[in-house]
């Protein structure tokens, strides 16, 4: 029985395929069914690689060229926009016309691109159900859905009782064949899509066999991060959005950090081989990412610069950066489709496969993890305490690296500790790291800008010189601001409460 207990629409997906006449056949005697027009539409669902739309509780779908963004059932709001051109490729928020739809989408997916699901073909015929008096008691839709091309159609019905007639419609619904009920039509259609892989996580939470020791744990860490790299590979190659490369690089850095921090486990020979392979990759991915960071920050720079500097020179500069990025990306792509890159991956695959062969040590997992975390926390506190506003930039860079090591370790071994406590520890560290990270970004940018300035000066391009000098000044100013803020952030990070937290987690004296 298909129970009808509310006044909302009932969305029923039938277990078996039925023909349209069924809608009439099941009607109680003296009831009539009145058919209206039939429409067909093509639907696609969209989400980012890491499922941001879904995670935010939204649904994004396109019907031909009309895009609809809608919150989960029961929540207010709907944003609709029509897009010109072929909507078959991944789309970023900036690909949509300016307006509230784009704003809302950007708030959800940021710089990521949404990608289409396979196309669903839907034919829907509207009909009404009339009772003995010829009174309409419900408006309804008969749907034939083709989730994969023209094969395997499914049939569904949407029943919307008119106010005051839910009870009467129940008589009709009771006679319908077996069906599964869905909350919304979109949700029903989504359920018909081929099962996709579990939602992607750039930092999957790892679980270990605590009794097996550190060696298998390290292998698990590396394997997982290697998998994350490979998951992002296609997105990098197709350049769908900048975050594929970012996640790809971060996974690589985590692998390198794991190898160098968690030791001695592997034979130095194989370790060197693995690290070198990753370094080779970094040579191609690094320049593209640096340019991405710059291009993504265009708006922020625009805001920071006085109007007179954000004119033609500024435009030209960013156009140059975009061109440069194109060139660097071509080089990266060439590398990633080369034999050399295939060998990098082979090195890693072999290394992980022949793991046992290269082991020289297998310490107890929990003890070693605690010792490592304690050591790096202590190092960070100590080195951080020595820094002040007048310290050299290099000291801040070193501290940033130190903080990153601790962050990675906390993330690798998070499953060994209570989730809420470890989350709190990561949150506190992240606040501290953000300051150091921003500081580093400005330093990198100053280096890059100075190189551009040199060229502009040689070319006697006055407008460029003006813009670049202004940008360098802005970066310096922001950097100094961050240095000024550092003392407060360090104090918060190194306070007693946090020390106690690490002490409780990892034991011993700090």
């Amino acid at each position, binding site marked *: 029985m298909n129970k009808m207990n509310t006044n909302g629409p009932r969305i029923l997906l039938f277990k078996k395929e039925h023909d349209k006449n069924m809608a009439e056949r099941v009607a109680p005697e003296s009831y009539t069914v009145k058919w209206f027009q039939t429409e067909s539409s093509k639907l696609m669902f969209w989400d980012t690689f890491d499922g941001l739309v879904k995670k935010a509780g939204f649904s994004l779908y396109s019907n031909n060229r009309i895009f609809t963004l809608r919150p989960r059932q029961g929540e207010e709001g709907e944003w609709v926009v029509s897009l010109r051109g072929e909507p078959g490729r991944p789309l970023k928020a900036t690909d949509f016309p300016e307006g509230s739809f784009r704003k809302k989408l950007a708030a959800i997916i940021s710089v990521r691109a949404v990608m289409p699901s396979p196309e669903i073909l839907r034919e829907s015929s509207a009909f*009404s159900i009339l009772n003995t008096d010829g*009174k309409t008691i419900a408006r309804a839709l008969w749907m034939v859905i083709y989730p994969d091309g023209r094969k395997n159609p499914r049939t569904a019905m949407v029943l919307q009782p008119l106010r*005051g007639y839910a009870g009467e419609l129940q008589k009709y619904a009771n006679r319908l064949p077996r069906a599964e009920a869905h909350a919304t039509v979109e949700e029903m259609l989504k359920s018909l899509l081929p099962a996709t892989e579990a939602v992607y996580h750039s930092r999957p939470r790892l679980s270990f066999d605590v009794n097996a020791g550190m060696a298998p744990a390290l292998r698990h860490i590396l394997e997982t991060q290697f998998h994350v790299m490979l998951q992002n590979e296609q997105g990098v190659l197709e350049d769908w959005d900048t975050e594929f490369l970012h996640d790809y690089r971060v996974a690589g850095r985590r692998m390198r950090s794991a190898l160098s921090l968690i030791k001695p486990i592997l034979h130095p020979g194989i370790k060197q081989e693995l690290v070198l392979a990753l370094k080779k990759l970094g040579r191609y991915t690094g320049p593209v990412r640096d340019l991405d960071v710059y291009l993504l920050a265009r708006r922020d720079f625009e805001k920071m610069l006085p109007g007179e500097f954000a004119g033609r020179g500024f435009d030209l500069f960013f156009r140059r950066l975009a061109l440069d990025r194109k060139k660097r990306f071509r080089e990266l792509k060439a590398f990633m489709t080369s034999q050399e890159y295939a060998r990098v991956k082979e090195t890693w695959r072999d290394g992980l496969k022949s793991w046992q062969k290269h082991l020289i040590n297998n310490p107890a997992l929990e003890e070693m993890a605690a010792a490592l975390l304690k050591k790096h926390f202590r190092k960070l506190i100590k080195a951080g305490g020595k820094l002040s506003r007048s310290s050299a930039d290099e000291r801040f860079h070193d501290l940033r690296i130190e903080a990153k090591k601790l962050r990675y370790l906390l993330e690798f071994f998070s499953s060994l500790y209570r989730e809420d406590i470890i989350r709190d520890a990561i949150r506190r560290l992240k606040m501290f790291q953000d300051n150091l990270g921003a500081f580093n970004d400005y330093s990198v940018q100053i280096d890059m800008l100075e190189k551009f300035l040199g060229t502009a000066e040689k070319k006697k391009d006055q407008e460029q010189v003006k813009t670049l000098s202004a940008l360098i000044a802005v970066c310096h100013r922001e950097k100094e601001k961050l240095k000024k803020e550092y003392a407060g952030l360090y104090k918060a990070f190194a306070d007693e409460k946090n020390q106690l937290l690490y002490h409780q987690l990892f034991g011993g004296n700090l």
Partner: protein
Amino acid sequence: MKIIALYSMKGGVGKTASAVNISYLAARDGRRSLLVDLDPQGSSSFYFRVRPGGGHGTKTLLKGGKKISKNIRETDFENLDILPADISYRNLDLILDGTEKREKVLQKNLSAFKKEYDYIFLDCPPNITLVSENIFHASDIILVPFIPTTLSWLTYDKLLAFFREIEMKRRKLFPFFSMVERRKKLHREMIEILPAEKKRFLKSMIPYSSDVERMGLERAPLPATHPASPATRAFEHLWREVKEID
């Protein structure tokens, strides 16, 4: 939200046809409308093919709010709901008599729908009783169908007198000619002299029409089934005039 009553002390003057047709026209304009069938005979309900729900009755109207809401039915036409009549309304007067602030019960109970509807139309039973007094209090506009005859004039004067007696604002009253037969001399004469006499007469005139009579067979508002009929045009004119009233 505006409450508009179709009222006359006389029966058979075209109250129900007007209530059904102008509530339909309001809904067609995109206004969320509710037609309340207060006539125990339930003709409005019949025109919309709606039967009264079980357990609904006088108590519903007296209790108001949720009780009323539960009995509201959606008609086949977008934006138009109906609260069907109930045979027990014939006792409404007796029951109202025993309640506090007895002449304002309907007003209070309908105020619960302020947000839900733009217009509430009341199809009223023909008489002057406590129910009518409730209707007068609750309504912003009272439309009085008026067949151009001497008897109608007399009845209308009685209504005005009653309004004076209960100190009700006569400004609410808007008579309009209904079931007009141009070939009748009396009708023509009345139409000529009455509006000068009674300032609040609306300009619209609903002609006597067999199309209106057929509504009982077709069980739907006239503009929905006979969009080109002269009577439809007249109701459209009437609705345009009514919605302009402040």
